[in-house]
């Protein structure tokens, strides 16, 4: 576990040094702050606009970080041949991969903490209310990003960097549309087609399950069971995808 921790910390440190991360975080913070500007254009509830823009920025820029990081997560270690130094030590391949994943999760987590903090302060300035449910939305976005980061890790070991990024992006898009896939099964005739689409639906992550933004923005009640099952759903997907990533990485020729 020490090895995994060390790799995770190193991945996090490396990303912190990366300018591209600052760029994304900077953009996200600017978006949240500029939401005040958009809010000024509205007639009525300025707070709603600020929250909507802030939460969407939080999700979008976290996704961008996951997508971009999938490009360099493993390939940089292989290209720089540092992976051999690491694996020459008593570090198992799955530990290396898990460390990389946790490092990525830490980066996204740090980004989310920062954006959530800025958003809560912005909303406080605009509405005078300390809306801590925004932190809840941030946690749910983190769960979504944990799933996406797992896919980013899988694609990082499965394919070429750019293709991996595109595939992570595709998972994000499809993950938000998979609910419509489910609706499609009701429209289509034939049990076989329905069964095939149902299988596809269950194999893909339904990222809309992590979307509690409407409830947070409109101050609606959130069922505790929904939150609990969302956590279970996220953890199951993360574990599944990381196991698949490990299966590929275990036998991969790194030369």
């Amino acid at each position, binding site marked *: 576990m020490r090895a995994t921790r060390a790799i995770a910390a190193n991945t996090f440190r490396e990303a912190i040094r990366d300018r591209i991360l600052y760029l994304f975080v900077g953009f996200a913070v600017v978006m949240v702050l500029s939401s005040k500007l*958009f809010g000024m*254009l*509205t*007639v*009525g*509830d300025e707070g*709603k*606009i600020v929250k*909507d*823009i802030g*939460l*969407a920025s939080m*999700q979008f820029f976290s996704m961008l970080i996951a997508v971009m990081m999938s490009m360099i997560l493993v390939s940089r270690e292989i290209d720089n041949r540092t992976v051999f130094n690491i694996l020459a030590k008593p570090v198992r391949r799955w530990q290396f991969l898990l460390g990389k994943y946790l490092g990525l999760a830490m980066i996204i987590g740090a980004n989310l903490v920062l954006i959530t903090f800025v958003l809560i302060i912005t909303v406080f300035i605009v509405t005078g209310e300390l809306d801590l449910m925004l932190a809840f939305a941030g946690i749910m976005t983190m769960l979504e990003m944990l799933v996406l980061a797992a896919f980013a890790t899988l694609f990082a070991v499965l394919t070429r960097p750019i293709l991996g990024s595109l595939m992570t992006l595709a998972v*994000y*898009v499809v993950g*938000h*549309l998979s609910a*419509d896939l489910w609706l499609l099964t009701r429209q289509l005739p034939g049990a076989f087609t329905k069964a095939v689409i149902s299988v596809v639906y269950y194999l893909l992550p339904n*990222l*809309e399950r992590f*979307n509690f*933004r*409407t409830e947070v*923005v*409109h101050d*609606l009640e959130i069922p505790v069971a929904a939150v609990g099952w969302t956590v279970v759903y996220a953890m199951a997907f993360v574990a599944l995808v990381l196991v698949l990533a490990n299966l590929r990485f275990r036998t991969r020729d790194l030369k």
Partner: protein
Amino acid sequence: MKRTIGTLAIVATLIGVAVVSEVRLGAIPRPDPLGRELLYLPSPEILKILSLGNPGLAADVLYLWSIQYYSFFEPHERFLYLETIFNLITDLDPLYADAYRIGALIMQIQTSGDQEELKKAVARIFDKGIRNLPKNWQLAEAAAWDFFIRFKDRKIATHYAAIAARMPDAPARIKRMVGVWRDEDSAWTVEDSIDYWRRALDDAEDEWDRVMCMGQLYDAIVARDRHTLEPLLREFRSRFGFCPREWDDLIRAGALSQAPVDLFGDPYGIGSENCDLVAYKRIKDQ
């Protein structure tokens, strides 16, 4: 150095050309610029998909845009696709209370076109809002006042005020408003009015509300008693040729069993000039 200056000069020139082109393009009048872009607006389903889990944000963008867009119109112009746009916004975010309110407000600015159709469109947007926000008494109250002030339609106004009054957190003043409007319109019987004001009095939230409701209840009871007692007074006068001085005259004549009293148990008076019932309203003492 020369090369750098040359490059900078080219960059500056190109920026200049771009700026001048933009200014020139902006100055050229275009036929019917408003409305054209609206023809290509996607359906709410497509917008929901495109927003990737952020339909609320898509609704915000459209809402902000619509506010700026419709500010270009003059009240005498036809506001193009207004209902469609606000339907789209509220389909994307059905809980967006401001969108229903402001959509209806923008609709009401129009002075051109069929005002009856406009009224129906305003009612449609409010109905949708009330359907999607069943606890938002503010929206229903806004609908009531809009129909009362803008369309001068007290029937529809009372309908919305009654909806607002039925909502759980609606303040007592809305209940009073409904009662007053219905009383003034004679939209219900005196007994209905008494029953309504008794319930409103029970639900009164503070002393001011209580006094107001009691005043209305007092008037409703007086109206009922007037309806019963004044024919008796008139009958007495026609029988005996003079107006009774006190209720005992009527009791002695067998027209009444006891002297009638008001809401607080105080006796009514008899107006000698018109031979009618006189009530002494002293709510604040109660």
